[in-house]
């Protein structure tokens, strides 16, 4: 029962389940859980039968299907194989997502039953703050929100910094469009974040913290609030936690729709109630952060790793991953891929495994073209590098980056110039406007890209793009501007020929950019039924029943409606003649 499940109709299924078990008078416990990452199969229902180890997992459930499942499986003891969905969680390694989709996120008892708050108790009663920091350092955990800085080191800096009031912040802004692991963790396992932040507070000597959540995530906010009040009641938050001498409390702050507020210095001024404009670093927030005080800021997924690191030990955590990237990483698989959803894999897993084994490959028999990682700050990994082991260093080397873990798969029908344009449009929209290289430079880049995608490209445009990119990277104030040219640079690096085709051959090889295409009716196939003419919203199709039909390309807005309605597939999109 997370955002994605509810969007797919989980609420109705949930209600039906309750009606049906009441109707049959069954003694069944119905537990709503958070996201388990199998978004493609939502809504999902797991049925556990006492005595059987594994649950049966049903996918793409409708109220009708669940009625049948309850009657057959729960009432008559007969599972319904038709509705069982394939689960690829077995091939993964769940660390940050260990509880998501397993426990009821609204129940602190269930969190405690799976070992929750043990790490906090261990820290408070068996470890000094410095020992906690050393343990986190030794685990090799690096930030999962962007740059991949060592979490333990960051905590150490804050612990050592002077200040009468220190703060612990959680970055739950999740600005990367196409990433939703932070939302899933907040909705599926909110207590782990509360526990981790409290541990961080103990480690650095802070008694206050804020969780900065984007306003687009109302369910996450609701679950967090509930979890915080349960934790307070149980004495895991508030004064003298669990009877120790340590006090700590949390507040939620809502973002208001500004991507730049994910940047750490901007996030802090936003919490202070101002426009979220970044400032130059140093001083770093670890030393001078919120209200000028030492502040630790970590990402949601980073925090989700903390309790289990303390519980199972640094050496357990650092025993998997690559030399410099330890542990696991959650990826949000989206785009042209069969199994959209969340996966968690050990660092260093080859991209091929992620896309084909876990993601199920590309739908429609199409070819894999590129994987975009790192969002608007990242780049595209072309098909040639599909055997790359995913870790921080390898992605950077390929001109992309880990970012927060959005992984958008693109097939051969994606135009890379259009993708670059898409990201630049995003950046231009989201630039805070404070520094000119970012505000004006990205706008100029976007104009060039718009020119190229609308068949007005000129010789020399690519060189201009490259020059602008260099200037913006070097002269911008914050990470937003410094990384904004990356999508352009990376697509230019691997798909330069596609740019050149737009400019020199006046073609969009992927068949995306409208300015290079036209719709046409294939006469031999056309049955002259005139359905297309009646469908066309702008009256661009002429012809009477039983007479040949024609599309006026001047009038046509390329909405594609005629193509989708034509019963004999007689309408084609082709390069302009």
């Amino acid at each position, binding site marked *: 029962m997370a955002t994605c499940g509810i969007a797919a109709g989980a609420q109705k299924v949930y209600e039906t389940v309750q009606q049906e078990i009441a109707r049959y008078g069954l003694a069944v416990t119905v537990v709503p859980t958070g996201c388990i990452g199998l978004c493609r199969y939502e809504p999902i229902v797991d049925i556990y039968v006492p005595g059987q180890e594994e649950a049966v997992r049903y996918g793409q459930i409708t109220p009708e299907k669940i009625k049948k499942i309850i009657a057959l499986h729960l009432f008559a003891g007969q599972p319904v194989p038709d509705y069982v969905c394939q689960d690829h969680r077995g091939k993964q390694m769940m660390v940050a997502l260990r509880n998501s989709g397993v426990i009821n996120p609204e129940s602190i008892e269930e969190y405690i039953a799976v070992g929750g708050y043990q790490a906090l108790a261990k820290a408070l009663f068996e470890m000094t703050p410095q020992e906690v920091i050393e343990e986190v350092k030794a685990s090799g955990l690096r930030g999962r929100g962007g740059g991949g800085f060592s979490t333990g080191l960051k905590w150490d800096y804050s612990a050592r910094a002077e200040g009468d009031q220190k703060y612990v912040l959680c970055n739950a802004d999740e600005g990367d*469009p196409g990433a939703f692991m932070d939302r899933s963790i907040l909705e599926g396992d909110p207590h782990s974040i509360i526990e981790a932040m409290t541990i961080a507070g103990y480690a650095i000597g802070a008694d206050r913290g804020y969780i900065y959540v984007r306003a687009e995530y109302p369910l996450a906010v609701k679950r967090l609030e509930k979890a915080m009040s349960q934790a307070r009641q149980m004495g895991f938050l508030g004064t003298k936690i669990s009877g120790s001498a340590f006090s700590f409390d949390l507040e939620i702050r*809502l973002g208001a729709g500004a991507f730049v507020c994910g940047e750490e210095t901007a996030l802090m001024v936003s919490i202070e*109630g101002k426009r979220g404009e970044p400032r130059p670093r140093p001083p770093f927030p670890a030393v001078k952060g919120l209200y000028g005080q030492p502040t630790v800021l970590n990402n949601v997924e980073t925090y989700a790793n903390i309790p289990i690191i303390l519980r199972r030990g640094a050496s357990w955590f650092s025993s998997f991953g690559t030399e410099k990237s330890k542990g696991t990483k959650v990826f*949000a698989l989206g*785009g042209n891929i069969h199994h959209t959803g969340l996966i968690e894999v050990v660092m260093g897993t080859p991209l091929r495994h992620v896309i084909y084994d876990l993601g199920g490959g590309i739908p429609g028999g199409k070819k894999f073209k590129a994987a975009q990682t790192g969002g608007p700050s990242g780049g595209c990994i072309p098909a040639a590098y599909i055997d790359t082991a995913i870790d921080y260093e390898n992605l950077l080397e390929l001109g992309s980056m880990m970012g927060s873990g*959005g992984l958008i798969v693109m097939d051969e029908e*994606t135009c890379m110039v259009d993708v670059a344009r898409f990201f630049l449009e995003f950046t231009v929209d989201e630039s805070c406007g404070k520094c000119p290289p970012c505000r004006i430079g990205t706008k100029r880049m976007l104009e060039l890209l718009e020119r190229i995608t609308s068949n007005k490209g000129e010789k020399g445009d690519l060189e201009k793009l490259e020059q602008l990119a260099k200037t913006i990277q070097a002269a911008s104030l914050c990470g937003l501007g410094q990384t904004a040219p990356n999508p352009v640079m990376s697509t230019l690096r691997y798909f330069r020929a596609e740019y050149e085709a737009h400019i020199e051959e006046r073609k969009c090889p992927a068949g995306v950019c409208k300015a290079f295409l036209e719709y046409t009716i294939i006469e031999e196939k056309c049955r002259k039924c005139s359905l297309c003419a009646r469908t066309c919203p702008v009256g661009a199709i002429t012809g009477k029943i039983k007479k040949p039909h024609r599309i006026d390309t001047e009038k046509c807005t390329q909405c594609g409606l005629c193509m*989708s309605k034509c019963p004999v597939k007689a309408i084609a999109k082709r390069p302009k003649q």
Partner: protein
Amino acid sequence: MTQCLCQSKKLEKLHEIIAVHKGKAGTLIPVMHEAQDLFGHLPLDVQSMIAEGLEVPLADVYAVATFYSKFTLQPKGVYSIQVCLGTACYVKGAQALLDKLAELLHIKVGETTEDGLFTLEATRCIGACGLAPVMTVNDEVYGRLSVEQIDDIVHKYMEMAWKDEEHGDTSESR
């Protein structure tokens, strides 16, 4: 969500909200969120009430209101249609949904229909990327969409609005 209260009740409620937050640090944005939930948007008189109440310059309130995309100075339609233009949705054809809606409603992105029924917006990722392409109408989320479904969804809301009218529902939900 927008609540159906008459103007003076809303103003009273706003005073209460301000009183709860007054004197604490960093409460400007939370108050503005609550005010927008109450009024549906942030007209200048609401902004100046917040400024006065929290004792911050009006310029600061205005600066915040215009910086963050969630805050709006213009009233929105009864139904706010937001098409996700996050990367996952874009790759799966969200632009075509947006184009279709603009054409159907005869408005551009960011505008409200003349009858005040629909506002059309492109939104940032709502984190339901697994169901891309996605759009929301007020609080309702629609996933795995195709252009052909758009007509039906829009008509559903038109009918709901007509029914409300027939029942003489005069609540000013805008």
